[in-house]
């Protein structure tokens, strides 16, 4: 595509995060269950259930991924991170049985992203988690690709509602490929069009006028 339009910074691949990616910033805001392995003096107010001055050692609480990642150290135990339920053995069995039945939007929506990030914390279950992530993706990919290539000019909300963020992005890139192909086939690819931004701003203007 020969486009100069707005393209956001893409999220990182696998265990990587891109510093400037809005998607990655949102993903790293997901909360993880943790247990403190030392005390955090003068920060008691962060833990709502207590009114003590400090966060004592052994407190179970939730912290966002970015903070857990920042505090986590392999050598010195500052905190231990528990696996969110969807990555534990019970759910892994379900995913392995039939990845197509699970609603990854509800369970995610960053199922793959967060799962890959969990590999930063040295859990003995890491190989199994990675394996399940990969198999789940492969198991769902075919259906996702098929539906993105066949839904032309129709409401796709039912098709995407159970998809994880990564899958949704793939679905929409499939859709845009399909749409460009169709418009080329109809001889419309050479039609000059107004920029989508211009159209949007105009729409907004019209909305503003309505009482």
């Amino acid at each position: 595509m020969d486009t100069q339009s707005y393209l956001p910074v893409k999220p990182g691949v696998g265990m990587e995060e891109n510093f400037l990616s809005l998607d990655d910033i949102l993903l790293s805001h997901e909360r993880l269950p943790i247990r403190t392995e030392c005390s955090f003096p003068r920060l008691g107010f962060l833990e709502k259930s207590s009114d003590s001055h400090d966060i004592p050692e052994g407190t179970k609480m939730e912290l966002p991924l970015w903070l857990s990642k920042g505090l986590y150290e392999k050598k010195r135990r500052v905190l231990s991170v528990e696996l969110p339920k969807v990555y534990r053995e019970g759910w892994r069995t379900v995913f392995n049985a039939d990845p197509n039945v699970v609603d990854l939007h509800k369970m995610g929506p960053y199922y793959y992203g967060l799962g890959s990030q969990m590999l930063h914390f040295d859990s003995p279950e890491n190989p199994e988690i990675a394996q399940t992530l990969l198999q789940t993706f492969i198991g769902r990919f075919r259906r996702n690709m098929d539906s993105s290539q066949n839904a032309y000019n129709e409401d796709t909300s039912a098709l995407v509602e159970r998809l994880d963020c990564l899958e949704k992005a793939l679905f929409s890139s499939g859709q845009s490929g399909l749409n460009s192909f169709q418009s080329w086939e109809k001889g419309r690819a050479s039609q000059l069009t107004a920029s989508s931004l211009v159209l949007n701003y105009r729409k907004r203007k019209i909305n503003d006028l309505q009482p």
Partner: protein
Amino acid sequence: MSDALSDDGSVNQDDSQEDVMTPAELIAKLEEAWLNEKFSPELQENKSEVVECVMEQLTHMEENLQRVKKGDAKASIHRMEIDRIRFVLSSYLRSRLQKLRKFFPHVLEKEKSRGEGDPSLLSPEEFAFAKEYYANTETYLKAVALKRMPPNLQTVDMLKAVPEPCLDSFVFLRVKERQENILVEPETDDQREYVVDLEEGSQHLMRYRTIAPLVSTGAVQLI
């Protein structure tokens, strides 16, 4: 695409020892560079000599067109030809500019670490643009936010912040010169690396990283 050009002999006006290129060859070169640039994840070496020649050629064609009488059917065919060449040229320059803006810290870094005799990645005007773009963006971030932050947080390493081009992405290619023993990295843990031969005229889908050197030598063409 080059029929309309052939009324003029060669592009190279000064008869030095340089290779003389016909207009048809010149346009083929431009198309080659254009497709490679469009489909490769990273910036290719600049082809400013091709750009300059094509622009010269366009001017020349415009001048020819002025002399043709109005309403001559040949004129509109020539006009169309000019438009088409100008589109390819603009599109080529646009996709380079897009990568420049997307990867500016890395492009500049690569240019800095380039060896004495190595060909330059950027044309002089691209280099000027990239440098200005870097400075402008850095100044902006400083002025709005960074200089108002605590002293130890007033800089952001642009090389780390702005993502690099993804050389592992897959590209389609056509082989122009036969290649032997191209090493292909394994995709999964249970695969091993292996070697392939690329036959002339065959087409493949491969990781860009594997064949990047062949793109710059012209042995393969991205499609």
